Structures are given as structure tokens and as C-alpha cells.
């Protein structure tokens, strides 16, 4: 986070839509999780008590497209609990995680069937009539978003309510969010709002920062996240990578070194065969 390059910058198209998830307003109610399951008719999954604070969801998955993380940081290192709190959710962090709808999306570039597309809203959607469940998008996502469903064998993730957007409706999660911790809108407008909010929080002494610009979260060729976040702790605390990289940045270099290796091996083989020829001539 020391680098200031790319702070507050995104390569999102002017017409792109996305989410701003402001953790400082989140009350961890999980309305987003349920509203998402309701609209998208996703079944209950991974049922069980985890003991991880109030998080019994655990992770984003094929049938969980919003996940609220709970991080308790009540006491200091000596175990003393403070009474005076930093303004806005400083001691019990809650973050509603979601697909980031990357400006350059690893899952989409990886998809060998063209099932994953960028929509007219600049969101990233897995077309369910195309996906054949190859599963390559799953490890290709630097954020752990898409997952294969054992129910239908296909990959699933947040669609940013593509069907609702088509009818001019707000996505289910941001609509439901009681405290407007999740806001939906044009990425650039949301980004301006987020920057103002971060500045406001910093003025109040809160260590707030933006996650999802080209300096943090949207790094390494990702070009920014269309669903971005305001955090008050290092991203790792929320299980978010600080400076992820677009995996496809490694495709061309990988092929180049492979080609080089192929060349070397080819020459070596030819030489080996030539030597056989010569050896027997001699």
C-alpha cells in the first residue's frame, strides 16, 4: 500500500455499473445474502456452526453470491477491551463480499467456451446455457469467486442481477441493504462517492481506504474492480488479496518460455540424432 500509483484510479468504462460496499456502514445483518438467494433462487448450502464469530457462511460459492465476513478485533494485543471506539465499525469488522466484476476479469479470459461474457453494463456474467463446467474459471479468479455447483455441474457466481438490470431494477442485495452499506450505480460516480467517504473518514481519524482501484485490489493488469470496497483494516484481514494479478498476464510469457524451451529441446534432439548419424559414420 506504500505505492501511490493508481490510487483512486480505475480503467472501468464510463458506462460501467458496479457496487460500492462501504464496510463502515455495514451492520452484518446478512440481508444481502438472503436477498441474493431469494432473487436468484439459490438453495441453502454448507449448513453448520463454524464458530467463526457470526459467520456461518464461510465463503462465496456456487450457491452463495454474497458472503458477510465477521472479524472480531475487540481487545488490543494485551487483551484490554476499549470502551471508546473509533467511529464506524472499528472493533467488529463486517464485510459483505461479492464478485468484484473486474475490469479485466480472470474468469472471463480463462473461459474456453465463451460462457463468461462482459455484459452491456460492463458486468461479468456466466451464461448458464453455455457453461460446460470445465472449471477453469474457478482457480483463474484471484478472489475466489466462481465455483462449480455439484447440483448442475456448472460454474456460478454473482451476475450483478443481470436479469434485473435488463429491466431497470436495482440488484437485490444493494436494494435490500438496510444501511446503504451496499450501493449500486455507475462505477465512476460510486468511485467519487467512495473517495469522498474515505476522505471524510480519514478526517475523523479512521484508517479507511479504498479497495478496488489500481493501487489496491484492482492491481496487476486487472485495471480496477467494478465492485469495490471501503475497508478499515488491511485487506488480508477480510481475506482479500492486497495486490492480486490478472493470471492471464502470465499466458504470453509462459508460452514464450515454453517456446524457448521447445526450441532448445528441438535443437538438442536434432543434435542428438545428428550425433548418432555422425557417430556411426565415423
Amino acid at each position: 500500500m506504500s505505492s501511490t500509483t493508481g490510487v483512486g484510479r480505475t480503467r472501468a468504462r464510463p458506462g460501467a455499473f458496479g457496487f460500492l460496499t462501504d464496510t463502515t456502514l455495514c451492520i452484518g445483518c446478512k440481508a444481502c445474502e438472503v436477498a441474493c438467494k431469494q432473487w436468484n433462487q439459490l438453495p441453502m448450502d454448507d449448513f453448520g456452526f463454524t464458530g467463526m464469530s457470526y459467520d456461518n457462511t464461510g465463503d462465496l460459492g456456487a450457491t452463495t453470491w454474497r458472503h458477510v465476513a465477521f472479524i472480531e478485533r475487540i481487545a488490543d494485543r494485551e487483551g484490554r477491551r476499549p470502551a471508546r471506539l473509533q467511529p464506524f465499525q472499528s472493533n467488529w469488522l463486517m464485510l459483505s463480499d461479492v464478485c468484484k466484476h473486474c475490469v479485466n476479469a480472470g474468469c472471463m479470459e480463462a473461459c474456453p467456451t465463451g460462457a463468461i461474457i462482459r455484459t452491456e453494463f460492463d458486468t461479468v456474467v456466466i451464461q448458464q446455457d453455455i457453461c460446460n463446467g470445465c472449471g477453469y474459471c474457478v482457480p483463474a479468479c484471484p478472489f475466489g469467486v466462481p465455483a462449480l455447483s455439484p447440483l448442475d455441474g456448472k460454474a456460478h457466481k454473482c451476475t450483478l442481477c443481470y436479469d434485473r438490470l435488463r429491466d431497470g431494477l436495482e440488484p437485490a442485495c444493494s436494494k435490500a441493504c438496510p444501511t446503504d452499506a451496499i450501493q449500486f450505480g455507475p462505477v465512476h460516480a460510486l468511485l467519487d462517492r467512495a473517495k469522498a467517504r474515505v476522505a471524510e473518514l480519514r478526517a475523523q481519524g479512521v484508517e479507511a481506504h479504498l479497495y478496488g482501484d489500481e493501487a489496491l485490489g484492482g492491481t496487476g493488469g486487472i485495471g480496477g474492480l467494478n465492485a469495490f470496497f471501503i475497508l478499515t483494516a488491511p485487506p488480508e484481514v477480510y481475506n482479500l488479496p492486497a495486490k492480486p494479478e490478472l493470471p492471464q498476464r502470465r499466458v504470453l510469457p509462459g508460452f514464450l518460455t515454453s517456446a524457448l524451451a521447445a526450441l532448445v529441446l528441438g535443437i538438442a534432439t536434432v543434435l542428438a540424432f545428428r550425433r548418432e548419424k555422425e557417430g556411426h559414420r565415423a
Partner: protein
Amino acid sequence: MGIVQRLRHHIGLVPNPVSRATRQAHARIRGADVSVSVCPYCAVGCSQLVYTKDGRIVDIEGNYESPINGGTLCPKGAATWQLVHSPLRELRVKYRAPYSDRWEERPLEWAMERIAQLVKETRDATFVHRDERGLVVNRTLGIAHLGGATLDNEENYLIKKLFTGGLGIVAVENQARI
């Protein structure tokens, strides 16, 4: 889509091969009937929009117009659709005879008649017209009612009116007490 464009779409230059289903995607509440409801859970009183198609509820979400919730809902409110369509919801009358170890399914009409008979029996057996001091009390302690905070005002009114005003049942209580 022209053939060149289509090819471009499919050879990874503009990797956006949109499918038929995607082109036809739309919200399932398009063209649905909408009624205005109130969330049945807590007392904040969030307004809900209930979308129906062919007599079936297809979606329940918050009502933007409400000065209380402004379109939002909490997880319980957001789960109202599943409360209605819960796979565990009971839709038949169940009857358990005294000392029996099993439920039996019974017609609603039968249950209603049987309950009315039981009310009359118990009431007649326990009705007190005058108490030991001779005061007119017109009450029965033999029957009680619990519940009401999750019902409608009109239903509570009918309960109070019939049970207390009409049957002399005084032990009528709801969750406000606990």
C-alpha cells in the same frame, strides 16, 4: 450480427459471444401483478411488494415508497418469500388423538367442528356466572388463548371479542407479555 462481427466475437479478439438466453434475459417480475404488504417479522413495519404470477408469489422485496424502509429489508424480511414457500411449511390439518403416538391427517371442516364442540364442553363445565361473593363474573377459566403479536389487528380484535366478550374466556394473552 454480421458474419465478420460474429467471427470476431468468437475468435478471442472481442471475446463476448452472447448466447440466446442472455439476449432474452429479463427480471422474472416483468409483467407480474404487485400487491403491497407489510413484513410479518419484527415491529419496524417494513413495506413489501409481493409480485404474483398466475396466483403464485414469484418474488417479495422491499417497497421504495415506504418512509420506513425505503426499499430495504433485513434478512428475515428478505426471506419472506421462502416463509411462504418453505419446503417445511405445513399445509394440512394434523390431529393427534389423546395418548396416541402419531399424527393423523383430518379434514379442516372436521377439525373446526370438533374444536367448537370441545370449546362448548369445556366452557359449559367451567363457566362461572357468579363468584363466591355473589358478583356477576360470567367467565370461564377452563380455556386459554396464547398469541397475537404476529397476527393482524383485526384478528386480535375478533379473538378478544369472541373469546372474552362472547365466551367469557379471560386467560387471553400474547407475546407482549414476554
